[in-house]
C-alpha cells in the first residue's frame, strides 16, 4: 500500500492518471489499480495492494498448530476448505501423519464442492461486471445449496475449519450424502442453463474474446497458476502433477485451452465445474459409511469423546492437546495444493515448540494479480474490468 505517482511529461498533457479502487465494485474487494490513460487506451496499469493486510502470517506464529486453522479460513474466503486442506496437509507432513482413507475421500469431495462454489461466485460476479444481472442470481442460488451442505457437514457456511490435523472435526451429519447427490444430479443442467445465457451470447463474446491475452511463456515467468495458466495451454494442475489426499485414485481431466484470453478462462472454469462434478460422483461410492475420520495419534489428535469418559490416558491427552498443543520435530515443509485459483502453497517451519515458527502462504491470487499489468496494457479502459475479473483474485489471500 503506497502512493504511486506515474511520471508524465509536464506540458504535453497527453495522458491522464486514473485511480481505480480501492472502493470500486468491479475490483472485487479492496484492490487499487493506478491507470495511466491516453484517451481510453491504457498505457500503464499498476496494481497497489495491502488494503486488507491483517497480519495472518504473524498471528499464526502466536497460536498453536490447531488454532491456526481458523486463520486459514479467512485467507481465500471463497474457498475456505481448500485453505484448511493445504494447511492441514502441511502440518501432517511435518508430523509424518497418515490420514485414514475415509477422511481423505471426504476431504476430496468437499474441496471439489468448494471449487464448484467458488467458480459459481466467479461466473456470477463476472457476469455482473459484464452487465448480465440474471446469471448472478442463478449462480448464487446454486451456491447457496453448497453453503447449506457445508453447514450440514461442518456447522458453518463459510468459515468451516472442518479439516483438522489428522482428519476431520466431526462425523458428517446423517443425510449429507443424499443432499450432495441431489445437488450433483441437478448441477449439470443448471450449468447448461448458464452456458445458454453466456457462452454464445454476442455481448459476452465481444467483451471477452481476444481480450487480455497472455502467452504461455509470460504466464510461467509471471508465476500464474490455475485456470489463468491453463488458458495458455500449460496443463499444470497440482492434483495431477503432485497428487495429494488420494487424488491419484480419481479419474478426471485437466481442461486446457490455447487462446490465453478472457474467454478461454471463462470456458475453463465452466469445464472445471464439470470435472469437479465427475470427481464428486466418484468420491461418493468410495466413502465407507463408517470408519475412523481421524488418525490414531495420541497426543496430537484429540481422542474420541466416549473414550475420555473411561480412560485416564485419553483424558490427559485431551487436556494436554488443548492447553499446550503438540510439538512437531524441527524442520520445514512446503505443501502445494490446487485451490480454485491455482497453486496454493503452505510453508510451515517448526522449531520443536507447540507453535509454528513460521507459516507462509503462497497465495495463487498474489502471483496472478502481478500479471494484471501484462493483460491490460495497450487495451481499452473497459477491458480492465474484464481482465481483473477473469484472473479471479480474492484480496483476502493477496494481502493476508
Amino acid at each position, binding site marked *: *500500500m*503506497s*502512493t504511486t505517482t506515474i511520471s508524465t511529461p509536464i506540458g504535453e498533457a497527453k495522458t491522464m492518471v486514473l485511480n481505480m479502487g480501492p472502493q470500486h465494485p468491479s475490483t472485487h474487494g479492496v484492490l487499487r489499480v493506478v491507470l495511466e490513460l491516453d484517451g481510453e487506451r491504457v498505457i500503464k496499469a499498476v496494481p497497489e*495492494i*495491502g488494503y486488507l*493486510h491483517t*497480519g495472518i*502470517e*504473524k*498471528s499464526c*506464529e*502466536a497460536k498453536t498448530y490447531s488454532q491456526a486453522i481458523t486463520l486459514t479460513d479467512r485467507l481465500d474466503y471463497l474457498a475456505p476448505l481448500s485453505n484448511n486442506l493445504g494447511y492441514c496437509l502441511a502440518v501432517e*507432513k*511435518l508430523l*509424518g501423519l497418515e490420514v485414514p482413507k475415509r477422511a481423505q475421500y471426504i476431504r476430496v469431495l468437499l474441496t471439489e464442492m468448494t471449487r464448484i462454489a467458488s467458480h459459481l461466485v466467479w461466473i456470477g460476479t463476472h457476469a455482473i461486471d459484464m452487465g448480465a444481472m440474471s446469471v448472478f442470481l442463478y449462480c448464487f442460488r446454486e451456491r447457496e445449496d453448497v453453503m447449506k451442505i457445508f453447514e450440514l457437514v461442518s456447522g458453518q457456511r463459510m468459515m468451516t475449519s472442518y479439516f483438522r490435523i489428522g482428519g476431520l472435526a466431526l462425523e458428517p451429519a446423517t443425510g449429507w450424502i443424499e443432499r450432495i447427490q441431489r445437488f450433483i444430479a441437478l448441477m449439470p443442467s443448471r450449468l447448461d442453463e448458464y452456458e445458454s445465457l453466456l457462452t454464445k451470447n454476442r455481448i459476452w463474446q465481444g467483451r471477452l474474446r481476444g481480450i487480455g491475452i497472455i502467452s504461455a511463456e509470460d504466464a*510461467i*515467468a*509471471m*508465476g500464474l497458476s490455475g485456470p489463468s495458466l491453463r488458458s495458455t495451454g*500449460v496443463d*499444470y494442475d497440482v492434483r495431477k*502433477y*503432485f497428487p495429494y489426499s488420494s487424488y491419484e485414485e480419481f479419474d478426471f481431466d485437466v481442461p486446457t485451452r490455447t487462446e490465453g484470453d478472457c474467454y478461454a478462462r471463462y470456458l475453463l472454469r465452466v469445464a472445471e465445474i464439470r470435472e469437479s462434478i465427475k470427481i464428486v460422483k466418484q468420491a461418493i461410492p468410495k466413502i465407507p459409511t463408517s470408519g475412523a475420520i481421524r488418525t490414531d495419534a495420541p497426543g496430537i489428535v484429540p481422542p474420541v469423546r466416549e473414550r475420555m469418559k473411561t480412560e485416564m490416558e485419553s483424558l490427559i491427552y485431551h487436556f494436554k492437546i488443548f492447553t499446550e498443543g503438540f510439538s512437531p520435530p524441527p*524442520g*520445514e*515443509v*512446503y505443501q*502445494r495444493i490446487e485451490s480454485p485459483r491455482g*497453486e496454493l*502453497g503452505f*510453508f510451515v*517451519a517448526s522449531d520443536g515448540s507447540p507453535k509454528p*515458527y*513460521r507459516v*507462509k502462504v*503462497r497465495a495463487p491470487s*498474489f*502471483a496472478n494479480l*502481478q500479471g494484471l499489468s501484462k493483460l491490460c496494457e495497450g487495451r481499452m479502459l473497459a477491458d480492465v474490468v474484464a481482465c481483473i475479473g477473469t484472473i479471479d483474485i480474492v484480496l483476502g489471500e493477496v*494481502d*493476508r
Partner: protein
Amino acid sequence: MAEPEELKKDPVTERLRAWDAQAVADVLDFRGERTIVVPRSHLLRAVEFLRGETDLTFNFLSDITGVDRFPVEPRFELNYHLLSIPNRKVLRLRVFAHGNDAIVPSVTSIWCTANWHEREIFDLFGVRFEGHPNMRRILMPDDWDGFPLRKDYPVEGYR
C-alpha cells in the same frame, strides 16, 4: 524418519555440484523434500543455471519465503521454491543473510514473478534485494516503522 534412498542420489543436486562444487554449501532432506543451501554469492548464477539447462528447466518460481532465526546469526533465511513444469520436479534453494548485511541478489531478471515476492520480504523482514527494479513496501504503508515479521517485532505491534 529414514529418508528414501532415491533422494540421496538426486540428479539435480549432482548436476549442480558437477557444474560448480562451490554452489552447493549443504544439502538437507526432510520429509521427502530436498533443500540445497546455496552461498549468497552463487545464488544468481545457480538459478540461471537451473532455469536455463534443458534437462533441468526450473521455469516456475512458486514462492520465496523469508524466515527470521533471531537471535541466531545469520538470522535471515530465504527459501526459493522452484518448480520445473516440463520435468514435474520441485526443489528448494536456501540462502542465508546476516542481520547487519541483509542484502541478497534479486532474481527478478530470471523470473519476473519474483518482483512482488521480494518486495514482500523487504516489506516484512527488511531484507534488501540488489538489482530489484522497484524496492518499495508492498503490504504495509510507506511510512511504517519496523518490519512486522521479524521475531523481535511484537505480535501486537508497538504501542
